[in-house]
């Protein structure tokens, strides 16, 4: 991916761009909001990593301008501010993700992969965890060597869980995703779907975190 990194702190910008290049991304670095607004017009840019604390223009204003110019441009926000309201404002203003400093670089790379797959710009659209692999574009599911066919809504749930491997997906979050896909959601819908999914997948592949939600352990991701 070609990433535009908007970060005024030179050492952080240097270190981060090195990590991103290491992970096979192309990185353009700018240090000011003004430069960021010009750089956005470059058609080559696939994603913006934006620091909210810029010296000239407030990061949130940069984000709003970016949204006006490039409507579907994925933006990940970095910030030293940590107020919940900042997070809400950031996501409201159209950020795709939000990482408070200091963040784990693996966490950032994982979120980049999710966006990449969603954009279809990934080198591979396949997520493989243990013996299970899912093509996020074609929704082809393979367990071991065998191809498994599942109803669409169950594949969608599995995709949501696999894309967020290592993180908990709450029942409410999964329900709202089913809504987004235009599915009818009853009170026990998620339980039923997970139950069906489990029958087709290796044992303990989907973990239940009682009272919280579901998760697929990250071990062996890609």
């Amino acid at each position: 991916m070609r990433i535009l990194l908007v970060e005024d702190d030179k050492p952080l910008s240097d270190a981060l761009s090195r990590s991103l290049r290491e992970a096979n991304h192309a990185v353009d670095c700018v240090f000011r909001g003004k430069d960021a607004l010009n750089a956005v017009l470059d058609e080559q840019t696939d994603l913006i990593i934006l620091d909210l604390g810029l010296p000239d223009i407030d990061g949130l204003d940069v984000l709003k301008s970016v949204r006006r110019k490039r409507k579907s441009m994925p933006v990940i926000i970095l910030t030293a501010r940590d107020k919940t309201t900042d997070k809400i404002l950031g996501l409201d203003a159209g950020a795709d993700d939000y990482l408070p400093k200091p963040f784990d670089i693996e966490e950032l790379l994982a979120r980049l992969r999710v966006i990449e797959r969603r954009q279809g710009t990934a080198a591979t659209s396949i997520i493989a965890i243990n013996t299970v692999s899912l093509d996020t574009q074609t929704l082809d599911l393979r367990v071991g060597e065998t191809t498994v066919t599942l109803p669409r809504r169950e594949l969608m749930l599995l995709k949501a869980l696999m894309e967020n491997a290592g993180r908990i997906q709450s029942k409410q979050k999964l329900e709202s995703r089913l809504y987004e896909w235009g599915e009818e959601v009853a009170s026990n819908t998620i339980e039923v779907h997970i139950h069906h999914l489990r029958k087709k997948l290796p044992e303990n592949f989907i973990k239940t975190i009682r009272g919280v939600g579901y998760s697929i352990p990250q071990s062996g991701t890609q």
Partner: protein
Amino acid sequence: MQSIRRFLTLILVSALILIIFNAAIHGYRSATAVSADLMDNELKSVLYALTLSEGEPPNNPSSSQLAFQIWRNNRLISHSGITEDLPSLASNDGFFDQNFGGQRWRVYKQTVSKELTIIVAQPLKNRVLLTESLTVAAIMPFIYAVPLLALVIFLVVTRGLSPLKMLSTKLAARKGKDLSPVGLTSTPTELQPVMDTLNTMFNRLNDAFEREQQFASNAAHELRTPLSVMKINLHNLAKGMTEECEALEGIQKDTDRMIHVVNQILLLSRTSPELFKMQLGNVDVIAVAQKVITDLYTKIEDKQQEISLEGDNVFLMSTEFTLYTLLQNLIANASAYSPVAAVIQVTITQLHGNTVIHVDDSGPGIALEERDNVLKRFYRDQQEDRYKSTGSGLGLAIVGQVVTMHKGTISLDTATIGGLRVQVTLPNLDKYE
């Protein structure tokens, strides 16, 4: 001195009573003198009248008001019913007091001529009665005035002290660390310097307080970016290494610990009672707990620990941030202080109007005698090193602060699953004073 108002009222009313009493005594004395003169003159006139009548008895000889004896050539020729010899016969002419007939008399004797002596007397009781009625008449208005004057004094003192009262009421009504300047609708000149000094002090305190709070927060914020750089550089360095390096792993862990401390300092400054009161609302405790577990899950999963949440429909007057901070610290501690593959159970229930939070773990627990120390700020458990946790010791202090803000309680116990049980009880008040 307990109260200026009471002191002033008491002193003024006592002084007033004392002065009136003095005036009464003085009045009584002058009235006595005046009535003595008056009645002596009366006696003189009576005697003069008797002299004129030449021994003829007057119209009302048996009057109890006056008694007389007329002596001619040492023989009693006329009297007013008193026949006994008066010892005054032997005395000189003029006024004197004497006892006879069962009471004390004022006697006036005059030898009119060689053979005629007239004595007139009047009971002293009469004079006392006259004096008394004179004094009472003079003093009575003042006696009536005392309660009225006392009331006036009380009202004036109260009114005069009202700015002081208003100031103390305003100061007493302040909540928490309210350091805004005080103001009165009209400040008397005597109180102006006090107000000025007070407000200057408030301003300086406020500045100092804000600086202190800002400093911790600013310092922590400023550290975030360099810590990010450090973390990324270490990550890049580690990637470039072909074999494992113990020193690098050590630095990575220390960096994580520094990040943790910085975050904890920010949390501590942000869970201040002032902010808490400002943002109070009804919070879904279960939803917050779910969020905390979701956010902490990566770390829990790394240690292959099993976590579960139990509870349904628990709401509490609080703020989402404070509850998040509380639960985040409790659960992160349980995970950090428990070994790999431990079980962590979070239970949230509503009991008798209280929200009761249990965080149980199957870890090693805390020895009975050490539990008191655990709640102290910066205290770090000896066992920490064994499980290589990154606790900064601020965690339980933050928990303590949040519990105090809720007027709740925290206790440590042994969990049914073997390890430590941290129980936090938060009363579900409508609002906090």
